[in-house]
């Protein structure tokens, strides 16, 4: 973002803390509120979107109105249903309703609203955030896919894969990168040299080609969880090297900084220097880098699943939901198959905005 963010008023934040058991927590909450107020709208919207998506992942059975594998065989490729607001006189009956769809042309899969009959939307009903009276008469908020499964429910469940892959992947490549990077910087000499040469090799891989070749290892019969971890492992294996290199460079440069020298002069042990002085300095950068590298994982998983090499049906991920759009005919006749792609784009954009803002906050000197 172009505008420099306002620095937080730490003095004021400090003044309002009162001594007590939860004062640290309150201080943290206060700092978070101040941070929120200082953030531009793009960042606030990004954070809100990410929270919603993670809520999708955490509470999918409640948020999804239907079972993601439930097939409504008479409603394949059904368009999103229009919501109607009931007139106030009928509010005792329900607030929102939709008309059920019936197939008008089975060959072209064209649907028509059946105006004679209403499907009422019920909130907090049968353990779902919103759903319909009977599970046999569905309301498709975002339409259905070619097997008649509710697209919105599948997107909600797909968030589990798509939103978690970034976190797990970053966690793995992060821990590998920090450990190996710090180790390499600490050892120096031949070990350092060898590790860094290896990192360079990994960094000059044609990563997507390599990803494709490695993804062939994943057997199609494997469970979704196993496949998920295989994909994460492959991507983390490709991406930890860049991390390690930068961490090593930072650790090496911080090691000779005056404040570390001061610590050393005061007799701090090597471990203490590393844990108290070096790692916290690197951590801010690492957090920014993590947030900016999550989109890579999301996109990597979606690309693989899109090509049929990642998460397999009937499990849902945003990538394999989008694979229906591989056929241009589908996009033309059932444009709602593109909706999962919009979710992917929003998630990626939100992480980009967040990471960029974090970089500005932590390093106001750079205008990037």
């Amino acid at each position: 973002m172009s505008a420099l963010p306002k620095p937080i008023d730490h003095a004021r934040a400090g003044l309002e803390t009162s001594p007590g058991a939860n004062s640290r927590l309150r201080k943290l909450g206060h700092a978070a509120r101040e941070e929120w107020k200082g953030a531009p709208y793009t960042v606030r919207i990004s954070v809100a979107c990410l929270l919603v998506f993670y809520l999708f992942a955490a509470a999918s059975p409640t948020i999804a109105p239907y079972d993601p594998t439930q097939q409504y065989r008479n409603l394949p490729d059904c368009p999103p249903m229009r919501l109607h607001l009931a007139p106030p006189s009928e509010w005792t009956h329900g607030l929102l309703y939709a008309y059920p769809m019936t197939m008008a042309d089975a060959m072209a899969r064209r649907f028509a609203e059946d105006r004679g009959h209403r499907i009422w939307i019920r909130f907090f009903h049968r353990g779902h955030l919103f759903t319909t009276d009977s599970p046999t008469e569905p309301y498709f908020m975002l339409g259905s896919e070619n097997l008649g499964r509710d697209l919105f429910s599948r997107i909600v469940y797909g968030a589990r894969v798509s939103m978690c892959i970034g976190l797990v992947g970053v966690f793995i490549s992060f821990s590998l990168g920090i450990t190996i990077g710090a180790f390499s910087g600490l050892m120096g000499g031949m070990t350092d040299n060898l590790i860094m040469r290896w990192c360079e090799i990994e960094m000059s891989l044609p990563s997507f080609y390599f990803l494709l070749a490695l993804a062939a290892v994943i057997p199609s019969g494997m469970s979704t969880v196993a496949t998920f971890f295989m994909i994460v492992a492959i991507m983390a294996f490709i991406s930890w090297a860049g991390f390690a290199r930068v961490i090593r460079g930072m650790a090496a440069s911080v090691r000779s900084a005056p404040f570390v020298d001061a610590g050393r002069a005061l007799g701090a042990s090597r471990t203490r220097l590393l844990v108290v002085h070096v790692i916290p300095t690197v951590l801010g950068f690492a957090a920014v880098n993590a947030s900016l590298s999550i989109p890579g994982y999301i996109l990597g998983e979606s690309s693989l699943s899109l090509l049929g090499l990642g998460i397999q049906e009937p499990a849902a991920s945003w990538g394999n939901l989008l694979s229906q759009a591989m056929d241009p005919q589908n996009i033309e006749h059932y444009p709602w198959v593109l909706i999962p792609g919009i979710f992917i784009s929003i998630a990626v954009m939100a992480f980009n905005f967040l990471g960029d803002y974090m970089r500005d906050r932590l390093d106001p000197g750079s205008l990037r």
Partner: protein
Amino acid sequence: MARFLIKRILIMIPLMLGITFISFIAMSLVPGNFVSNLALDPHISPQVIKQMEAEFGLDQPLMVRYLRWLWQVMHLNFGISIAYRVNVTNLIAERAVNTVLLSLASMVFSWALAIPIGIIVAVRQNSLIDRGLSFFSFLGMSVPAFFLAFLAMDFALWSGVFPVGGTFSPDYAALDAWSKVADRVNHLILPTLVLGVAGVASLMRLMRSQILEIKNSEFVRTARAKGLPERTVLYKHVLRNALNPFVTMAGYGLADLLGGAALVETVMNLQGLGLLLLGAVRSLDVPLVMGSVLMGTILLLVGNLLADIALVAVDPRVDFSTLASQ
């Protein structure tokens, strides 16, 4: 220069060995092989299967297969694709042309657009135009290339101006030379735009931040103090220095470009290296996978090398001895 080149080429050797070996292991970890898929067909007798396995050496242990393959590659023989029954070299050469064309075209497109936009945006920092374009650059960076490719396909279907995917028209063989070129170009336009959008966005941001950083440096102040007109300061002093990382980016951006191209090729059914590799991975056509991975690596390494050489040519502060010692 010679020392630098020799060193770089020597580094490439273990790199390629490592990459091909890992890919080879990965392919062999998959249960079954190309021939065992054929064995499911009751019309093919077990004898034929055995014969094919022997022909392609699939009955040998892993290390033997890898070393055999390596030996052949050293003689510039990449083997025969099991699926296509064609020499892998010919197959890859034919497809790589499309991928290289697509990557280069989208690179030219994104540079031609990103540099001027970056300059405009940096000169008018914090203006409405800056904020607007910065937002769009975020949008361009965030929308995945495959999603854009879907939209482009939809656009092609809807407008009818561009062909809906593919490499050339069905009547390609019957066309005369110029129409053939025009047909190819026509099929490349949409993929180029799709692949280039993300490039425009990120390069524009890089250009902007570069100019803003250099604008505040001492030599620019000196140039202004000398009374040089603002135009000269911008184009002769700021811009020349701001372009440096672009030269490096040109080489190292190739990896992203190749990866992005692979996806766009697949979605838009453009017969390139990525689509070829995907098919080969799916059918466990080991010689073809190995050839494609090796080809992608070579493209990437040569691109990086060229970028470093170009950097020496552009930046007088960098010479081969500093590059070689890195």
